[in-house]
């Protein structure tokens, strides 16, 4: 594992150094193509269960030949090629956020977290309530200034103030229990090849599938490839579970295309998950939900090496959508990209990793 990582990382670096002047324009164009897809996805809102805006953005970005379909779980399917084996790639549409749990007498909202997050990162920040109509702006009340009751054990509750003087005024804005809440977000380019935003998990995976679809010629595929944009991953892999049940024993392999939570930060312990940004996608060989069979890891690494696509091999924490295919005997070979500060309002990626991830997805779909 270490050897493969070192070789591939070295190859990346050598390639960059040797061909830097010629690559500068080519790389800029590659990264611009990534941003053209990633930026609108990041700036779409879709808390678990309310993914329609993100699904619509994906559908809009797909190539003209694509005939994507939505199933009853809200998953978006793009099926390409014919014959077996069937290989499934799955990236999730949803993002973490909050749900309105109650409208209080004073007009403020009790909001419950959907997905794993630190509420402290949201308190004292602007808020948006997604009503299904126009979003309603507000603020996440800072705890020190709000007279909120203690949250029930095991439930992360925050208060949201939309400026309604009482319950009736707030409801008159169209706000109801069950609607979702996020914070306004923007895609922002940092120095060099880095970018920041919220919900890179898993809009990067979603973008990689879109970019790969743009490169694939479905007429030339020698087997069936399914790109699946799934729902409700953050609250229990629910969309993927429905898709896995629908496919049953048919898939030969599933690739979850999802975040590799990286320890590439001064704040993290570096005992595992050390996949630096900028060194390429990551074979997420082991996490809390799956272990990739070692032969598959080796084969994936060989493919990447052949195609001169950088690949890191590591382990991290978290679960992935591919793991729900396990009960059907489908090998799960998740592929990620290094992400800093996951599930925070300021996640950071390296766009070269995203471009290489799309390359790898296309290569695996067409040739593995």
């Amino acid at each position, binding site marked *: 594992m270490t050897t493969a990582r070192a070789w591939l990382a070295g190859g990346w670096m050598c390639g960059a150094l040797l061909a830097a002047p010629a690559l500068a324009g080519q790389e800029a164009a590659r990264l611009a193509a990534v941003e053209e897809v990633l930026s609108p996805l990041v700036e779409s809102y879709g808390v678990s269960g309310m993914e329609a805006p993100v699904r619509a953005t994906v559908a809009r970005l797909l190539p003209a030949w694509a005939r994507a379909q939505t199933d009853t779980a809200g998953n978006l399917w793009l099926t390409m090629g014919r014959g077996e084996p069937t290989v499934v790639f799955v990236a999730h549409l949803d993002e973490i956020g909050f749900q309105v749990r109650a409208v209080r007498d004073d007009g403020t909202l009790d909001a419950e977290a959907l997905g794993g997050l*630190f*509420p402290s*990162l949201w308190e004292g920040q602007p808020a948006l309530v997604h009503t299904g109509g126009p979003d309603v702006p507000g603020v996440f009340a800072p705890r020190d200034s709000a007279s909120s009751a203690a949250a029930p054990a095991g439930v992360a509750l925050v208060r949201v103030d939309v400026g309604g003087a009482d319950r009736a005024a707030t409801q008159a804005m169209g706000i109801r229990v069950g609607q979702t809440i996020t914070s306004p977000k923007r895609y922002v380019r940092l*120095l060099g090849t880095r970018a920041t935003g919220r919900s890179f998990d898993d809009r990067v995976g979603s973008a990689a599938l879109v970019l790969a679809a743009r490169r694939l010629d479905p007429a030339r595929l020698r087997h069936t490839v399914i790109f699946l944009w799934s729902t409700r991953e953050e609250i229990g892999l629910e969309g993927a579970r429905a898709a896995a049940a629908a496919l049953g024993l048919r898939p030969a392999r599933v690739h979850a295309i999802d975040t590799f939570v990286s320890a590439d930060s001064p704040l993290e312990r570096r005992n595992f998950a050390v996949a630096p940004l900028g060194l390429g996608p990551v074979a997420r060989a082991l996490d809390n939900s799956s272990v990739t069979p070692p032969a598959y890891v080796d084969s994936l690494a060989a493919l990447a090496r052949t195609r001169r696509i950088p690949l890191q091999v590591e382990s991290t924490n978290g679960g992935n959508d591919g793991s729900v295919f396990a009960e059907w005997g489908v090998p799960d070979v998740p592929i990620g990209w290094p992400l800093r500060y*996951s599930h925070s*309002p300021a996640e950071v990626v390296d766009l070269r990793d995203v471009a290489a991830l799309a390359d790898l997805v296309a290569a695996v779909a067409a040739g593995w």
Partner: protein
Amino acid sequence: MAAALALSLLALAGSPLGAQEREAALPDLAVRLAAMTAITGYEQRLVDSLLALLPGATRDRAGNAVVVLGAGARRRLVACPVSEPGFVVGHVRDDGWLTLRRAPGRVGPLVERQIEGQRVTLFGRRGAVPGVVAVRSIHLTRGRGAAGDGSFTVDSAYVDIGATSRADVAAAGVGVLTPVALAKRPQRYGPDLLAAPVAARRTACAALVLAARRAAAEQGMVPREESVVVAFVVEQDLSGRGLGTVANARGPFAETIVLDGGAGTPGGLVRGPDSLAVRWPRLGTVTRWSLGARYAGSAVETTALGGADTLATALARWIGEGR
């Protein structure tokens, strides 16, 4: 930002502000001022904008924006502080990460805690540079309470601007002492609420800008025997250098109003005596006019723009009538 701010009010320049115009301009100006950053000691970008907005205004030796209305011997002063708490780059690491220190003056715990895991803006020598304050990934965290443990301080902050070396940082015009603040994103919500860091103070300053513009445009508004000094003062939360300089260079004043924001009913105006006259007797009788705010001192300090309009009207009346 300064140019945009000036352009937005260009149509109002040189003509009296009617009530309808004032109502239309104030929310926009308040939002624009709230979107700007003026960390204590590094306020000059905001002062530049104020100078562009106020015909006849000059920058004094302390860096305040000052305009004098009228030419009479009896002087009065109305001042609005422009400074805000924030941070500066304390150190640049070899690997491109930045560490921070607090700018001098009061930096409340909410201001400090609410930059964790957020986007920040660094005001470098070559312009604004976006960055983020690192936070542990929840997936890799063990033993941290789900509700947040409140242990974050700026002393444990690492700022990530996408740099991978000290040279990257320098090339972006960023270095030790570069001011750093939470990326501003003023939020209008509810019937007429505005949320932003120091929203109430900035809204009060916006009200004063409009009142001063109105007075400057309406010849004879200030009584002949009087003059009114309008000052937007720096470093109010540190040494008071800005206000002190106005007192010593422009005083003595018969009376002074110091505007500010503070905890209270959003948009409510609280007027009360202030002890600043003890420190600077040349200020005369000092009254503090404080625009009320909910969540005061936080990144979503919230005031009501209706109150700001009331404040602008009250200020115009005070400038014109002497009380």
